[in-house]
């Protein structure tokens, strides 16, 4: 299955990238909101087609090998040896699916809520979806960089155009934060080009020998680019603002997918390219990760805005991902990857739930709610389930990754595990305290009394996510199985020093 088979001679990876982008461009040509209904339909078809192009990656995946699969290679800019080189391994492949899947949900979630500039809204999400697939598939550094930067533009516009009151501030804060990191990464890539004998091949960079000084500097450069995206403490403050201002769909993509790009960068770039620096600086990443779990857990507790609370909870959950990666054992890395996928489902669901309430009440303030279960029992049941997943309850996907990372951490350092395990308490505290104030209790005011329960479309979106959350919690084996070969290979690679003196 290593050669790219696809449709009409186009590989599956290219299809997963370009089908949504082309669908998005096509929507842009269909004019203004007078065609909104057609634009929505077109968007849904585009998202479904994009997902359909990603499904063969799962079904045709050979889990036994760590080498890149579905590879496509074409020359792009021969003068600099820059190639259109795509391929996925067990680390990248799940995220192409997760991203394509999330796009469908986002299109459905914006179906009725978005009434102005519908075409542009839908197009932005589809184009973004294709670009993010490009990030996960790119094996050429420059190609990666182009996708990595380009994917920010639709998100930036989504926040800037359909966002809340303070959207310009949030969009710019987001843009500046990420821009700083990206520029450093570009410099790092230039340097690697020369170290790898004039190649932009990421896999060639993995093999290039480097001095410790170079490794540390490269580590810092890549770290800035990716840590901002994850986001890790202390470069996280853009995320709560961006979430608060973003429309629901924007928050969903931001939480479910965009954050994962940063974490993915750690595995594709930092660990294999600068393994010695990574080992050397483990203390730093672990410290930041544990601060994310404990400090951010406490900060989440005092938030009065639901979206901010969930945003902070995302940062805490991503702390588990980076902690897991820097444990350098299979449980840690696979646990981190599982946590990334699970967080894609759970945070998407949590933001959609807030969106459901926001569409009706136009408020995200916890204090404006109370007793929602009385008027929206079906919604309350879903919200309860996702809240429990957010609190890491076993038999939901939220448990699997955290459990694996804690088990992996105990093997390395008991106190790391102990600090990470405080999420059992903090995660439950901030999530369930919010549930208590929003869902339970007497009907708080006449606005809550007038709430109508979720409609069929909302039920389907939340129901699909509920099945994902439960399915992955009860039977996560298929998710870990596709990763084994790639993760073992990565660990073997990282265990060998590539220092040159």
């Amino acid at each position, binding site marked *: 299955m290593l050669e790219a088979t696809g449709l009409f001679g186009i590989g599956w990876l290219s299809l997963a990238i370009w089908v949504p982008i082309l669908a998005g461009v096509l929507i*842009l040509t269909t004019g203004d909101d007078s065609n909104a209904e057609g634009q929505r339909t077109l968007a849904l078809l585009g998202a479904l087609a994009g997902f359909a192009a990603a499904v063969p990656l799962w079904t045709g995946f050979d889990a036994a090998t760590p080498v890149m699969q579905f590879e496509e290679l074409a020359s792009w*800019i021969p*003068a600099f040896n820059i190639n259109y080189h795509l391929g996925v391994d067990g680390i990248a492949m799940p995220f192409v699916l997760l991203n394509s899947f999330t796009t469908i949900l986002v299109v459905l979630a914006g179906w009725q809520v978005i009434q102005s*500039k519908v075409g*542009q809204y839908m197009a932005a999400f589809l*184009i973004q979806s294709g670009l993010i697939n490009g990030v996960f598939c790119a094996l050429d550094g420059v190609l990666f960089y*182009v996708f990595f930067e*380009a994917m920010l*533009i639709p998100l930036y*516009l989504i926040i*800037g*155009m359909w966002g809340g009151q303070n959207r*310009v*501030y949030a*969009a*710019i*804060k987001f843009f*500046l*934060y990420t821009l700083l990191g990206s520029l450093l990464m570009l410099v790092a890539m230039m340097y690697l080009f020369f170290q790898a004998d004039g190649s932009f091949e990421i896999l060639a960079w993995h093999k290039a020998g480097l001095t410790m000084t170079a490794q540390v500097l490269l580590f810092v450069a890549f770290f800035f680019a990716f840590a901002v995206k994850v986001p890790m403490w*202390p470069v996280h*403050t*853009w995320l709560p603002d961006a979430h608060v201002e973003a429309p629901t769909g924007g928050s969903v993509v931001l939480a479910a997918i965009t954050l994962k790009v940063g974490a993915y960068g750690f595995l594709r770039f930092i660990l294999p390219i600068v393994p010695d620096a990574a080992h050397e600086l483990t203390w730093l990443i672990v410290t930041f990760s544990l601060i994310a779990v404990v*400090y951010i857990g*406490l*900060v*989440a*507790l*005092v938030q009065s805005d639901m979206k901010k609370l969930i945003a902070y909870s995302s940062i805490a959950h991503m702390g588990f991902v980076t902690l897991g990666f820097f444990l350098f*054992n*299979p*449980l840690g890395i696979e*646990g981190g990857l599982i946590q990334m996928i699970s967080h894609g489902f759970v945070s998407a669901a949590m933001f959609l739930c807030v969106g459901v309430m926001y569409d009706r009440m136009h408020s995200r303030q916890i204090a404006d709610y109370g*007793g929602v279960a009385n008027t929206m029992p079906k919604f309350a049941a879903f919200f309860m389930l996702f809240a*429990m997943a957010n609190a890491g*309850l*076993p*038999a939901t996907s939220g*448990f699997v990754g955290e459990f694996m990372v*804690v*088990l992996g*951490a*105990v093997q390395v350092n*008991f106190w790391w595990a102990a600090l990470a*395990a*405080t999420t*059992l*308490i*903090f995660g*439950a505290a901030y999530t*369930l305290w919010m549930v*208590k104030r929003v*869902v*339970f*209790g*007497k009907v708080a005011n006449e606005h809550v009394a007038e709430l109508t329960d979720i409609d069929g479309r909302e039920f389907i979106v939340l129901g699909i996510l509920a099945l994902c959350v439960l399915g992955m919690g009860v*039977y*996560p*084996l298929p998710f*870990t199985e596709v990763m*084994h070969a790639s993760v073992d290979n990565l660990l073997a690679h990282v265990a060998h020093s590539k220092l040159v003196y």
Partner: protein
Amino acid sequence: MDMQSLYLTVPLAPLAGALVAGLFGRSIGRTGAHLVTILGVLVSFLASILIFQDVLAGNTFNGALYTWITSGDVSLEIGFLIDRLTTVMMLVVTFVSLCVHVYTIGYMSDDDGYQRFFSYISLFTFSMLMLVMSNNFLQLFFGWEAVGLVSYLLIGFWYTRESAIYANLKAFLVNRVGDFGFLLGIGLVLAYFGSLDYAQVFQKAPTLAHESISILDGHAWSLLTVICILLFIGAMGKSAQFPLHVWLPDSMEGPTPISALIHAATMVTAGIFMVARMSPLFELSDTALSFVMIIGAITALFMGFLGMIQNDIKRVVAYSTLSQLGYMTVALGASAYSVAIFHLMTHAFFKALLFLAAGSVIIGMHHDQDIRNMGGLRKYMPITWITLLIGSLALIGTPGLSGFFSKDSIILATYASDLYGSGFAAFAVTAGVFVTAFYSFRMYFLVFHGKERFHNAHAGHDQEGGKDDDQHGHHGGGHGTPHESPWVVWLPLVLLAIPSVYAGWAYIEPMLFGDYFGGAIFVNHEAHKAMSDLAHHFHGAGAMTLHALMTLPFWLAVAGVATAYYLYMVRRDLPEKIRRQAGVLYTILDQKYGFDRFNDWFFAGGARWLGGRLWRWGDVTAIDGVMVNGSARVVGQFARLARGLQSGYIYHYAFAMIIGVALLVTVFVG
């Protein structure tokens, strides 16, 4: 049907019932919901009996159902271990659950959440069965958290009541504190044993008996002591041991059937079961056993004291449960695991009986729970009266009844133990006998004897019936004459009264001194002599009963009953005088030793204070203020550009730019 399908049937039948009642509750209606769930639990109970017989015939099972995850050389599985310890638990859980299901038909008959309630209690039964049938730590933790979830949902079942949703959050969080230790214990097990499978871990345990780990620099601790204490912290949460006991009294906010099922008979005994299951580990650490025994002793005595001053009928029983869980924990610490399980079983019968009878009283009293408003109820509720009396007699250890055999065995085991702390534990469990007898019969006399006080009780009672949702609203305002409950309510009382009487007499010999538990429970008889000592002095149930009449615990129990009789039947004026005289002592008990206040102030308040400070000083001031807005001027300049965003045109420009750059580079450089 082969045995493995039968094993699967046991948890899956209640799960199916829960799913049907939960998802299709509206279409199948009330009758449909209780029929389908009761059928599920009945099937599960009958299957458990068949499995019990199979296990008695010498068959056991230990195998995986499916692989949950693999990672590196670790493989975590979902699977069953069916042995004699498991089957005792399966029978207890399914039998009590069945009784509670039937009882619920009557108790919840006019509640809007009828179907939801049946769905939850069947889901609970499933979770509890998965917990006890597990053959590994992973699934144990699954069940552990799942029963916690259902407990959370059921304590907050009447979700419009502020006190209920406060109590369920508190219960969940306190349990999570225990789970924190439990999870780390499991983590250490995997790190050092390389497996989470019970059989593999237990087999390897002796080889690690002298392994030490250095958690704090320079202090080498025995690995197994650390593991056992961490695991036991989990048990302290779930089984409500001091100082993590604080959630259990508040859990009485839930409807009474679940107080009986979850917060008395089954879920809260999960910690006891877990330690008994882990006996091959605990036997290797005297330090851990001492810790267990001391915690249990504190709980047994000091929680009993609190039961003496409660006026809410359910809270009396709740503190009694705490105290009895302490007794079981003491037994674990004395290496008398089989005695702990024996007491777990008898306690499940008589305590479920007491709770359900209390619920019957509450129905009869039109949802008033204050025992000061009762009195003389025996005339109006004869079946409830007799069954509650049987339960109380069993609880205080009346020779011949079930509680006597299990509780006296615990006391004797404590006397026989020579671990550090066993002296204190012996004192606590002995003194506890008086306390138990006193609070049990204080409640009994106040409820069933003496003057009928329900006619002049004030209407505005604020307990279960006074909850502000309207489903019980029609009970409000004034008291009618109490009445006996319908048969669906009293039948479970009778069913539970039967084993409350005979289970001790019939099973003490095989469970404690026969080889009933076989290999399921491991005791190092060389080092921990309690069980061999007990066996040495045991000459049959009859002899034990007769002998008891000459022992201290019996006379302490008699004294407890007599004191209660004197204070609440003869000299009704005395309790009030004592209360005023006791002053500080009474305040301490009334404040429940101040734990709730301290926890609210220190942990809940402290976490919010710290979170607020970190947010203000860390995120807002330090990071955003200095780092981000330090570049505020840059932002300002960008902002001027960005105003164009709202037009929507820049959208197109941005894309044109990216695509343009890519094209230019391709064409000119390429």
